């Protein structure tokens, strides 16, 4: 019955692949990463694994973080810290805009494997990936990372503008008093979100806005924030803050028409939530 057992191992060889490093603690991960260099950091691997298999990524070293213990959400008073290796599913019960955003990233199975750090560091190459970037910007989150020059803690937007060769350890932010997420809906769980706007009211009443799909990475919308008292005016103002682009899922023209609407909707929702 059945097929004969295979006579030889047929697993395709990746022996020309990178040197694989598997640190067993955060300290060891930081040591092994050093100044980075030609090193791929493997978080959940939902983006990297196919790239490594196909050879579109050919790093000299792969730093696998799954045993480095960088996962978990902790709360200290009103401040939340989320480890880089925390799977996205673990964020689904947090406050908006995080929860709303996470429920629109891929599907349940992928969200169980995909990590916060991988999402924050995802590149906008062939799709507007990294949906949490705009969310973290709106939350005023700081990113703690290591690499050349040692440890750095900086606002998300500064990290994103200068993130080559950094190993992210965690992000932290003060819990907002209200949050909202307005997005262009996806036709299917495998589609990417073409454009999304996150709005946050901080505990001192300040309104912060972040956008995704409106530039090379998540962006803050300072002009819209300055006009936030008038939701429609804020929508129009947001166009000054972005660098819209064409890609396979939406044109720059379409993004220009929809960004003001999403800003207005996010601010409307925020008002209702407060």
């Amino acid at each position, binding site marked *: 019955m059945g097929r004969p057992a295979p006579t030889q191992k*047929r*697993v395709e060889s990746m022996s020309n692949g990178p040197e694989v490093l598997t640190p067993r603690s955060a300290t060891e991960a930081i040591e092994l990463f050093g100044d980075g260099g030609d090193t791929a950091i*493997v978080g959940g691997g*939902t983006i990297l*694994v196919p790239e490594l298999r196909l050879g579109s990524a050919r790093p000299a070293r792969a730093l*696998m973080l799954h045993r480095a213990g960088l996962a978990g959400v902790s709360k200290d008073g009103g401040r939340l810290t989320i480890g880089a290796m925390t799977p996205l599913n673990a964020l689904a019960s947090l406050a908006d805009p995080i929860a709303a955003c996470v429920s629109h990233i*891929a599907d*349940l*199975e992928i969200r169980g494997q995909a990590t916060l750090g991988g999402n924050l560091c995802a590149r906008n190459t062939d799709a507007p990936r990294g949906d949490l970037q705009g969310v973290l910007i709106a939350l005023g989150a700081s990113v703690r990372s290591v690499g050349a020059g040692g440890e750095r803690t900086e606002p998300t937007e500064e990290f994103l503008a200068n993130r080559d060769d950094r190993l992210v350890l965690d992000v932290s932010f003060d819990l907002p008093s209200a949050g909202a997420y307005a997005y262009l809906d996806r036709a299917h769980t*495998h589609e990417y979100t073409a454009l999304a706007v996150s709005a946050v009211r901080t505990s001192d009443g300040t309104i912060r806005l972040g956008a995704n799909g409106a530039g090379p990475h998540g962006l803050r919308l300072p002009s819209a924030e300055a006009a936030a008292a008038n939701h429609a005016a804020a929508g129009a103002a947001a166009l000054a803050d972005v660098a819209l682009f064409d890609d396979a899922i939406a044109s720059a023209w379409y993004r220009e028409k929809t960004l003001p609407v999403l800003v207005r909707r996010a601010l409307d929702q925020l008002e209702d939530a407060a």
Partner: protein
Amino acid sequence: MSLNITVNGTSRTVNAEPLTPLLHVLREELDVLSPKAGCQNGGCGTCTVLVDGEPRRSCLIPISAVEGAEIRTVEGLAPPGQLSTLQEAWIHHYAAQCGFCTSGFLMAATAYLENGGSDDHAEIATALGGHVCRCTGYVKILDAISAAARGDSFDLTTTAAGLRTTIKGVDQ
């Protein structure tokens, strides 16, 4: 590298480069063929297996990340020669046509049911939204999972008889 994983209750030692996707280790080294290589990009769900009870895309998981884990595939759903209730529901409701998507759906639906999932079609669609089927139009798949969630029982002898009658009818 050499490492251990448990596949359907049996401990297996595998030799593979640490970044090799679990899918390839299962199919090409261990001869466990129910997980299918579809897109190999996370986008179709044909490769889904259970890793410590959670549905995961085996094409996206480096083998070294599941060292020591308990992997379940369709081969382990029921003892040899038997079917799980979900598999029976699949046959009864004609939820497979070409069958390429079936293994992934069965494993994701098994996890859904083991986690107490209901027979509600919308809830099932949310949980299994990452799985693509090019043949059935999904309705039969939803019917099958709903039936298993309700604990329906199936008389597959009549299902098979019904199938033979239909085929005979076409022949004549």
